[in-house]
């Protein structure tokens, strides 16, 4: 390839960064930084709200396909304008607030939820040089903002003055707190390996190649285990099936947002999906190389396209899991978090240390894999003991 081609590729890769610079460069100097920040915020809000709209269609159509039905197919080509219709519908619906509800807290809960969900995107690098702020403690910021969601969920459940919503909020908070521990512990291995809490430097660390193979953290024993544990905890954090007990339509109807209607309900929906995107994006940043291409000969494709391709892939896996697995019981959920996830993440920390101090080579791989697989099998065997797994027979239903 010639030099001009490299330049052209680089220009396409950096097109958003340069155009942002060009847009703000005409402004007076004191407004430049704030206006470029506002531009980035607008871009984040638009792009991820659009992704939310696309995901709802994909999810409904995908689930429909898995359940042998059509899914939405009336609005626009193949039903792809369904989110527009849904948006108009939720805007025109009456905003019902129960008479006994705590008006102010009831109003603030969805606002806080969406705000917290959007705040998390500030530290996620969506492309080369494309991050809103490169914080020194970026990963910590991400988890700190994520913990605001619990408060919003509690506010929603409590202020509705409805026993189902309170039950749902209690379940949601118990679940989120329990799974936040393995979520954070699973990401610590990456912080140990990268030696930094900044998301940008974590991605930069993975964006190099040996031959054609990338240096993603997922391609190490501890990285793979960490990624799997992180994704399981992320599924639980975002209240998605099979961990969707807080919503549990068949038991507590819709959980903490049962008393919300119209656009506030849509905000809850939006917040939940945004949380899912944010945790998936964090998994990509930590383990899957962020915006880096999977092979060295594919680096000519712009970095932001790689990031969104990985994000959409993870979302599709989420949809697939939702269509496949049944919901867990509350005690199963809790015991899984504390008896399996927590010991495994702690063990993974230890394995990451072993990996760091052993000399590179095949022995290191074998030792680390053995250290992870054998305890996992032993742990799951011992947890299974004393429990009878058999086909259930119902006395009256058959």
């Amino acid at each position, binding site marked *: 390839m010639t030099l001009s081609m490299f330049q052209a590729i680089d220009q396409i890769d950096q097109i958003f960064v340069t155009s942002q610079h060009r847009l703000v460069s005409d402004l007076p100097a004191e407004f430049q930084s704030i206006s470029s920040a506002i531009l980035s915020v607008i871009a984040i809000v638009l792009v991820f709200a659009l992704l939310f709209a696309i995901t709802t269609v994909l999810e409904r159509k995908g689930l429909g396909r898995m359940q042998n039905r059509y899914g939405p197919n009336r609005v626009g080509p193949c039903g792809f304008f369904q989110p527009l219709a849904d948006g108009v519908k939720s805007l025109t619906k009456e905003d019902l607030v129960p008479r006994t509800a705590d008006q102010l*807290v009831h109003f603030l809960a969805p606002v806080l939820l969406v705000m917290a969900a959007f705040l998390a995107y500030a530290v996620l690098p969506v492309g080369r040089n494309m991050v809103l702020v490169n914080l020194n*403690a970026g990963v*910590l910021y991400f*988890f*700190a903002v994520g913990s605001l969601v*619990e*408060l919003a969920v509690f506010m929603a459940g*409590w202020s509705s003055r409805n026993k189902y919503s309170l039950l749902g909020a209690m379940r949601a*908070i118990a679940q989120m*707190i329990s799974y936040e521990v393995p979520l954070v512990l699973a990401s610590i291995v990456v912080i140990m390996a990268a030696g930094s809490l900044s998301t940008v430097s974590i991605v930069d660390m993975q964006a190099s190649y040996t031959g054609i193979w990338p240096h993603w953290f997922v391609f190490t024993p501890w990285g793979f285990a960490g990624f799997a544990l992180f994704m399981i905890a992320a599924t639980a954090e975002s209240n998605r099936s099979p961990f969707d007990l807080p919503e549990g339509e068949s038991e507590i109807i819709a959980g903490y947002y049962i008393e919300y209607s119209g656009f506030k309900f849509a905000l809850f929906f939006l917040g939940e999906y945004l949380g899912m995107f944010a945790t998936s994006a964090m998994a990509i940043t930590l383990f899957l190389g962020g915006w880096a291409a999977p092979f060295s000969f594919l680096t000519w494709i712009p970095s932001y396209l790689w990031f969104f391709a990985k994000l959409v892939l993870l979302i599709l896996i989420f949809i697939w899991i939702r269509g496949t697995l049944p919901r867990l019981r509350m005690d199963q959920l809790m015991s899984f978090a504390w008896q399996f996830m927590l010991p495994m993440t702690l063990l993974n920390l230890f394995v990451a240390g072993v990996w760091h101090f052993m000399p590179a080579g095949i022995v290191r791989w074998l030792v680390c894999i053995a250290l992870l697989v054998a305890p996992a099998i032993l742990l799951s065997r011992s947890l299974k003991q004393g429990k009878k797994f058999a086909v259930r027979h119902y006395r009256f239903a058959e």
Partner: protein
Amino acid sequence: MTVTFLILAALTLAGTVAAMAMRNLIHCVLALTLGFAGLAALYLLLGAQFVGFTQVLVYVGAVAILAVFVIMMTQSAGPAMQPIFSSFWMTGSVVAAAVFVVLAWAICRSGFASQVLPPPVEAAVHPIGDALMHGYVLPLEIMGLLLTAAMIGAVVLAMHEKRRTP
């Protein structure tokens, strides 16, 4: 700088005052959370990212939720019937004022206020981790031990008591 500080200070003060003045205990906790968030923002303003985010993670994410759970488990969610000012508010405010005066006097005496402050340093995460893992590793371990003991105690308290069969 000063405008941001004033706004954040007003937010923190408003949150904490509301936490004391409101009737409904859950409202008090939510107001207190606002105060915590304001404090975290003040830390960030001082350039202490790590402390600020930890403040949000621990106080807003965990302590507020814990307080809310405790309130809901120990009493009904309805507003308490007690008056806002308790019978000994005079004594309480005298004690509070005395503590404030002593602290303010100690700070003024130390010559800290008259010192020329060095330019603010961006407190990076790296030196903090270094200090925790090298200089202060023993206090850290002792804290961990203490927390583990507390956790085991909580688990023991929450365990089912063995049913006595007659």
